[in-house]
C-alpha cells in the first residue's frame, strides 16, 4: 500500500513537467503584450520598456523557460506582475476560501444527490422518481449566476438573513455553497439513479432477493455498494473541477477564490500566476485521482491496489 502510494506520487512528476512546458508555451504564445497591458493605455514607450525589463520579458524565450523551470523546481513561484506579491502568497490567500467552499458544496450536494438518486432508483417510475428527475434537470439547467442573484435578492435584500457576498463568517458560506452545489447535486442524483438501476438488473441482486435477504439489505448492501464505484469517480472529477475555482459563483458572491484569480491573471497576462495556478490544478487532479483509486478499494475489497 505504502509502496503503491510512493510510486503513484513519483509518477506525477513527469505529468507536472509536461504540464509546465505546455502552460509556459501556451501563456507566452497568447497574443497580447503583458508589458503594454500592465503599463496601461496611456503609457509611454519608456514606461512600457520599464515594465518589460521589470518582468524579465526582454530575455529570449528559452532563457525565460529555463529560469522559470529552475525557480519552479526550487518551489519559487516568483512574483505577480500585477500586484508584486509573491505568487505563493497570492495563491495561499485564495486557496482556503476555494477549498472550504468546495468542501461545503460537495458535502451537501453529494449526500443530497446520492440520497435522491437512490430514492428514485428504488421507486423508479413512481411520482417520487418523476419529481426527482424534474428537480435534477432544473438543477443542471439553472444558470449559476441567475440562481445566485435570485438568492441574494431573496435572502439578503428582502429577508436580510444573510450577507450578499464576501468571505468571513459561516453566514457567508450558505448562499455560495448552495449555489455551487446545485449543479453537482443534480448530476450526482441522475448518475446515482442510473448506476443503481443498472446494478438492480444484475444476477447477484436477483439471487440476493431469491435467498431472502431483506429489501433494506438488498438496497444498501448489494446494490448501492456496487453502484457507488462510478459515483465515486464522478464525485472525484467534480471535486477536481470545483477546486479549480468556481468562476461564476466566485464572481456573483465576491468570493476571494482561485477561479477569479485565474481569470484576472489571464486578462492581465500575469504569466507567473497563470503558470503556478495551472500547475497547482494539475497536481490537485492527480492527487484526487489517487484518492479516488484508494476509495475504490475501500468500497469494493475485490479491487486490489498494486
Amino acid at each position: 500500500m505504502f509502496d503503491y502510494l510512493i510510486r503513484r506520487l513519483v509518477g506525477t512528476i513527469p505529468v507536472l513537467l509536461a504540464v509546465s512546458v505546455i502552460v509556459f508555451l501556451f501563456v507566452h504564445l497568447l497574443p497580447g503584450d503583458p508589458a503594454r497591458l500592465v503599463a496601461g493605455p496611456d503609457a509611454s514607450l519608456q514606461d512600457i520598456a520599464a515594465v518589460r525589463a521589470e518582468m524579465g520579458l526582454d530575455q529570449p524565450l528559452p532563457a525565460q523557460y529555463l529560469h522559470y523551470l529552475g525557480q519552479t523546481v526550487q518551489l519559487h513561484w516568483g512574483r505577480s506582475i500585477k500586484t508584486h506579491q509573491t505568487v505563493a502568497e497570492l495563491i495561499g490567500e485564495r486557496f482556503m476560501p476555494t477549498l472550504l467552499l468546495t468542501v461545503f458544496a460537495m458535502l451537501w450536494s453529494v449526500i443530497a444527490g446520492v440520497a435522491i438518486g437512490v430514492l428514485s432508483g428504488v421507486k423508479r417510475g413512481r411520482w417520487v422518481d418523476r419529481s426527482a428527475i424534474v428537480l435534477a434537470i432544473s438543477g443542471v439547467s439553472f444558470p449559476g449566476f441567475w440562481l445566485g442573484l435570485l438568492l441574494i435578492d431573496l435572502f439578503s435584500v428582502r429577508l436580510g438573513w444573510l450577507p450578499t457576498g464576501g468571505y468571513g463568517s459561516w453566514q457567508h458560506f450558505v448562499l455560495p455553497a448552495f449555489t455551487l452545489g446545485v449543479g453537482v447535486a443534480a448530476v450526482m442524483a441522475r448518475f446515482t439513479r442510473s448506476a443503481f438501476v443498472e446494478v438492480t438488473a444484475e444476477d447477484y441482486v436477483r439471487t440476493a432477493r431469491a435467498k431472502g435477504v431483506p429489501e433494506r439489505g438488498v438496497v444498501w448492501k448489494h446494490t448501492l455498494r456496487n453502484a457507488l464505484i462510478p459515483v465515486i469517480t464522478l464525485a472525484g472529477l467534480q471535486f477536481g473541477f470545483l477546486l479549480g475555482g468556481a468562476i461564476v459563483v466566485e464572481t456573483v458572491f465576491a468570493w476571494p477564490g482561485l477561479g477569479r484569480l485565474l481569470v484576472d491573471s489571464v486578462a492581465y497576462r500575469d504569466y507567473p500566476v497563470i503558470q503556478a495556478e495551472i500547475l497547482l490544478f494539475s497536481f490537485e487532479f492527480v492527487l484526487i485521482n489517487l484518492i479516488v483509486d484508494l476509495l475504490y478499494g475501500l468500497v469494493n475489497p475485490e479491487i486490489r491496489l498494486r
Partner: protein
Amino acid sequence: MPRLLTRLLLGASLMFAASGAALAGKDLVVGVPDNLTGLDPADLNDNLSQSAARLMFEGLYMLDENMKLQPQLAGSFEANEEATQFIFHLRKGVTFHDGTPFNAVAVKASFDRAGNPANHLKRQSLFVMIDHTDAVDDYTVKVVLKYPFGAFVNDIAHIGALIVSPKSVQDFGKEVTRHPSGTGPYEFVSWTADTLKMKKNEHYWKPGLPKIDTITYRSVPENGARIAMLQTGEAQFIYPVPPEMIKSLQNSPTITVFDEPSILVRYIALNNLRKPFDDPRVRLALNYAVDKQAFIKVVFSGHADPMDSPMPQLLGFYQKQGSYPYDPAKAKALLAEAGYPNGFETTLTGASNTLAQRGMQFIQQQLAAVGVTAKVEPLEAGVLTDKMFNVQKPEDASIVMLYGGWSSSTGDADWGMRPMLYTKAFPPVLANLAWYSNKMTDAAIEEGLSTTDPTKRAAAYAKAQAQVWKDVPWIFLSVDHDLAAYSKKLTGASMRPDQQFHLTADATLN
C-alpha cells in the same frame, strides 16, 4: 456531542456579534468592481488603485472633484515665463503616517525615485521633462525642467507624483506598494485578496479631520451583487452602476444616485491613411450617418452627452465646436460624391465588454442605413491591445475603425489631445489610432505646452480643437457620465470626472 454543539453555537454567536459590530460606528465600505493592483502611487495606472492611494497620499497640488487645480502639500508656486523652472512653497507641520516629517527633502526624494528609469516605475514618463529637483531650504523646492512644459503643475497633481515617505521606500523598497505611507487623511491597515482596510489618520494636518473612522474597499465584480450590497447596507458607496440599473435605484428612499458628466470621450477612430477613410468626405458622411441622441439612449440609457468638440466639456481649455446632426440623406450624398454611391464594406473593432458590444452593434445598424456594411469585431483586452500597438509602420495597421475612448489622466488639455491627435503619437508610441496628422494641429498642441500663460494656452487649444473638428478624424460620439450610488447617510463622496472615487477630507457618515 453536546459539548461540540455548545461550542459551535458559541462560535456562531460570536461571528454574529462580529458582523453586527462592523455595521455600527463610522465605517465606510466602498463596493468596487475589481481588485487593486497596488498602492505605490508612482507605479499605478488603474483608476481603482489610484483612488485608494489618494485617500492615503497627497501631492503638492491636487485636482478637486471638479478637476480644478488646488494646492495641497504646497501652499503656492512660482514659475518663470518660459515654463522651465517651478518653485514650490511647502506646507509646514505635516508628518507622514510613519512619523517622519514632510519637507523639501522628502519631495525631492519622491520625485527622484519616481523619475529614475532604473526603478522601472510605471509613471516615470511624468517626470521625463525634469532636469533636476533641489531642496532650496526645508520648505522650498525648486524643479528645473529640460524644456518648457506648461502643464507641469497639472503633471505633478497626477497620482504618479504624490509624495511617498522616503523612510518607507528605504524600509520596503519595491514592496512599498504593500506598505504605503503618505500624509493623507487615512492610514493603511491591511490589504488581503479582495479587501483593503484603512483607518483615520489621527495626526492629519487639517485639524478635526477626517470624520470617518475606517474605510474598506471591497471588490465585488458582479453589478447586481454590488447593488444588493448597497441596498442591504453592507456598503455605503458603490461604483460603477450600469446605466440600465439607474432607474431602479432612483426610487429608493435611502439611496442617492450619482449621475454627472465625466471626461471620458467615446469616438470611433477612422484610419485616416487607409481607403476609404483617407477621403474627408467619407469621414464627414459617417458623422452625419450616426444619430448621437439615439446612440446615447440605446447604449447608455440616456446617461451620456453628445460630443461637441474633440475634448470633453470638463477639461480645461475646452471650447464648443458645434455638432454634426443626424442626416442620413446628406451622408449618402457625401458618400456618392466621394465615389461610394453603394457604400463599402469595413470592420469595426473594439473591446468585448457588454457596453462596447452594444455600442458597436448600434453603429453597425446606423451605418447599414447609408449602405456601409461594417463587420463588428469584439476582442479580448490583450488581443485588442496587441492589435492596436504592435504596429511598427502605419501601413501595417490592421484596425481600420476602432471603437474607443479616452480620459485625460492628468486632467489637462495636453493629455486630452496629444496622445490621440499628434503626429508623433502614432502607435506604438502613443494612441493616435486614427493615424491623424495635420501640421496645424501639431503646431497648436506644441504651442499649448510651451507656456504656462493660461490665455496663450487657451488660444492654442482653441485652434487645435477647431482644426480637429474640421478634419473629422473620428466619428464623434459621446461623453460618458460617471454613474454611482450611495447611502443618504454619507456626505462628501462623489466620483471625479476622471472616474475615480473621491472623498473630501471633511466627508461624514451618520
